[in-house]
């Protein structure tokens, strides 16, 4: 007999010029995982910010354990027992695990911080949660997954009754995700209610007890465990039907000529003997667990990080690449997994970002810019890639994830790059926009571009790649043709670390 923990109803919130939430409702029982889904801009974040006291609601009520509560500040939220783990980590890398968990609430004796008690407290908490971490370690030395565990421990150290997780697995590998899910199972047994926001459909099936769907700030509906069916959920999210489990269709575009040949690429710490070929009109997928070295391969090829002993041929000619500008000169563009930090000038407009790699083409004598020609080009890309922006002078920060990704793609198209390296092309992009990015990738190879696509989402790899390079422990453990590949086979190679070390 489930007992109701949280009931939220009639929530509305508007910002100047936009109704972010309109009469939204949901319920959460004790010991239950409620998954909240919706495309970017559907209102999930606004709703969570209201629950965690960052925004004030315009209307509606929040009832926790049968009593209406007022949440007017993050502190108030913590006091009533609602904790949130943000998508972006809020940890201090130079402090220890324990110091991070109890920041602002350090146990003190005579005014001094009692470091021993602090560590013991943290150790107890971590033990209780089944997290194996030394409380004295610096957070900056931990993997992303472990940092996330610290965030969770911190949130739970407030004796949270409701725990909100905003895309907790976006930076985790499959096995780390498993660990997180086991942790969630444990929390459920203790009666904690969890609100789980995710873009990943597979996760719904795995952990959701109930799904609530938002679209355009409206409550669309909820499905109980038995009724959860992915196509239905997606249809509720986007308001239309999408096919799942598709395989690549652009195979016919692949040619035999090799546009990029990498031999014996290595780096001092991780990579060993990386050799592969990329053919014209091909999407070459790179699969592997986090830490396998896929991003490192990309960064070493483009000269962003130093490499050792590599022989690289572009279009049949041997080239030396010492820094990213060399790679770009040879027509290789890199689209980082971290668009916001490494791919875009967020505070500058769409036009600047699209032209950033090709400004030389719009420069006249004495270095003066020919702005008119550049703007025309930008507008062309906004139209052809269907970038949704009110104008090319919009600040890039204000665009949705999918449209930001398109701006980055436009940047490399404007530079006439024939080889594009996509690192997690759809990370943080909602379902509908994902489809559009997929189609764009297919269009690009149909036009004769060649693509290396690093992705942690196996369905994505299988759906788009003609061939799949699987990496583990800094080496290539297998290269598969799409016909021969399956999720199981890829995972097999991806976990094949020991065999390769001989």
């Amino acid at each position, binding site marked *: 007999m489930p007992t109701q923990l949280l009931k939220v109803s009639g929530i509305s919130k508007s910002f100047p010029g936009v109704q972010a939430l309109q009469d939204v409702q949901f319920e959460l029982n004790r010991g239950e995982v409620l998954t909240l889904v919706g495309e970017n801009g559907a209102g999930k974040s606004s709703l969570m910010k209201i629950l965690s006291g960052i925004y004030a609601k315009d209307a509606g009520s929040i009832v926790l354990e049968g009593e209406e509560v007022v949440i007017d500040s993050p502190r108030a939220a913590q006091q009533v027992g609602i904790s949130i783990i943000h998508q972006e980590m809020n940890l201090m890398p130079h402090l220890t695990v324990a110091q991070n968990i109890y920041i602002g609430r350090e146990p003190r004796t005579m005014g001094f911080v009692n470091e021993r008690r602090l560590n013991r407290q943290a150790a107890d908490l971590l033990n209780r949660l089944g997290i194996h971490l030394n409380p004295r370690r610096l957070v900056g030395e931990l993997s992303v997954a472990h940092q996330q565990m610290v965030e969770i421990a911190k949130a739970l150290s407030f004796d949270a009754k409701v725990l909100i997780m905003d895309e907790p697995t976006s930076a985790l590998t499959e096995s780390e995700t498993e660990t997180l899910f086991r942790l969630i199972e444990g929390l459920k047994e203790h009666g904690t209610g969890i609100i789980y926001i995710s873009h990943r459909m597979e996760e719904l099936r795995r952990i959701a007890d109930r799904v609530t769907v938002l679209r355009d700030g409206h409550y669309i509906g909820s499905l109980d465990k038995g009724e959860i069916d992915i196509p239905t959920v997606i249809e509720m999210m986007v308001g239309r039907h999408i096919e799942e489990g598709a395989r690549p269709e652009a195979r016919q575009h692949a040619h035999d000529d090799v546009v990029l040949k990498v031999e014996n690429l290595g780096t001092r710490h991780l990579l060993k003997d990386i050799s592969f070929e990329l053919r014209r009109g091909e999407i070459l997928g790179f699969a592997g667990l986090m830490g396998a070295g896929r991003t490192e391969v990309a960064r070493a090829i483009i000269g962003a990080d130093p490499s050792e002993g590599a022989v690289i041929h572009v279009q049949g000619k041997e080239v030396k690449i010492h820094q990213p500008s060399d790679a770009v000169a040879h027509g290789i563009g890199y689209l980082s997994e971290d668009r916001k930090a490494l791919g875009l000038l967020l505070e500058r407009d769409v036009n600047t970002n699209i032209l*950033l*790699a090709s400004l030389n083409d719009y420069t006249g004598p004495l270095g003066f810019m020919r702005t008119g020609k550049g703007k025309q080009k930008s507008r062309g890309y906004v139209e052809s890639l269907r970038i949704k922006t009110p104008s090319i002078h919009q600040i890039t920060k204000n665009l949705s994830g999918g449209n930001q990704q398109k701006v980055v793609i436009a*940047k490399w198209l404007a530079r006439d790059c024939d080889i594009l390296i996509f690192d997690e092309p759809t990370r943080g992009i909602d379902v509908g926009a994902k489809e559009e990015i997929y189609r764009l990738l297919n269009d690009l190879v149909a036009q004769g571009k060649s693509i290396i696509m690093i992705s942690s989402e196996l369905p994505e790899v299988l759906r788009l790649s003609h061939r799949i390079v699987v990496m583990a422990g800094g080496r290539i453990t297998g290269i598969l043709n799409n016909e021969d590949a399956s999720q199981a086979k890829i995972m097999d190679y991806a976990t094949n670390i020991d065999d390769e070390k001989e």
Partner: protein
Amino acid sequence: MNASPVIEKAPKVGETAPAKSGTAVTFLRAKLQQSLAFGTLIVLVIFFSIASSNFFSWSNISSILLATAVIGILALGTTFVIITGGIDLSIGTGMTLAAVMTGIFLVNMQLPLIVGVLGGLATGALMGFINGVNIAILKLPPFIATLAMMLIAQGLALVISGVRPIYFSGVEGFKNISLGTIIPGLPNAVLILFLLAIVAYLLLSKTLFGRYTFAIGSNEEATRLSGVNTRKWLIVVYTVAGLFTGFAGVVIAARLDSAQPQIGVGYELQAIAAVIIGGTSLLGGRGSIMGTVIGALIMSVLINGLRIMSIQTEWQNVVVGIVILIAVFTDTLRQRRSAT
């Protein structure tokens, strides 16, 4: 599967609406700090004109402009550096060294006027180049690299000059670089400031160099990954700042008709203050030459006005300090608003 599903994305209210209003708001915000600075300048001028009848006379305005010249020229060069997210503390004593070297070239070595002046400019550019190499190639933090250069330049200026001023009395026409009047009633130093301001404006707003300056300040790593040789451009930025320092050195030497080996100390902070009052963000990525010129004018109008009102020199520093606090405060206030 032979065709990917076609997605017709209906326009969503939540995506486009805030974006649209965002453009106008962002634009206004960008102009706000500048117009605030300009408004402040106007208010100051009106205030001092009422407070003292001597303020709004051509001779006083001309002396305000003359006082703005040196700080203004330094501030112009520093604007580029600050927009990249860096800082240049070496411009004050760098200016001194450039002035002293000009003296060495013209007085001790008796080189032709034009050569001596070019030598002074080159001295500044060379210091900037070294700063640039230290920051871009050796990856020293700008604060440290230019702090070291500040000490080095001061030391060299003292050593080379023998801790004595170098007088240009024998150098025909040198003084006219600053004090001559090609435009009647307007000292050449002011003309140089305005010409350099125009050059700086064109560089920053109209050239590739300017675009990359902003791009590096917005996100250096993203710019580098876009194939821009950021190391090279950073060196260029600091060299340009150094060149402006060289101009300031020549102008101040000509104005005083002597190279004073200790004069530049503190100028760097005044120049940086002018840049910040003018709305350029210390975090990088944002700024304008127009703002810097207005910022420099605000500083000199304040100091001149307080002096005319017979307020002690000691208090002038206090007032300038408060103005800086207010300027930076309005800037952070604006950023906080745009962040949420």
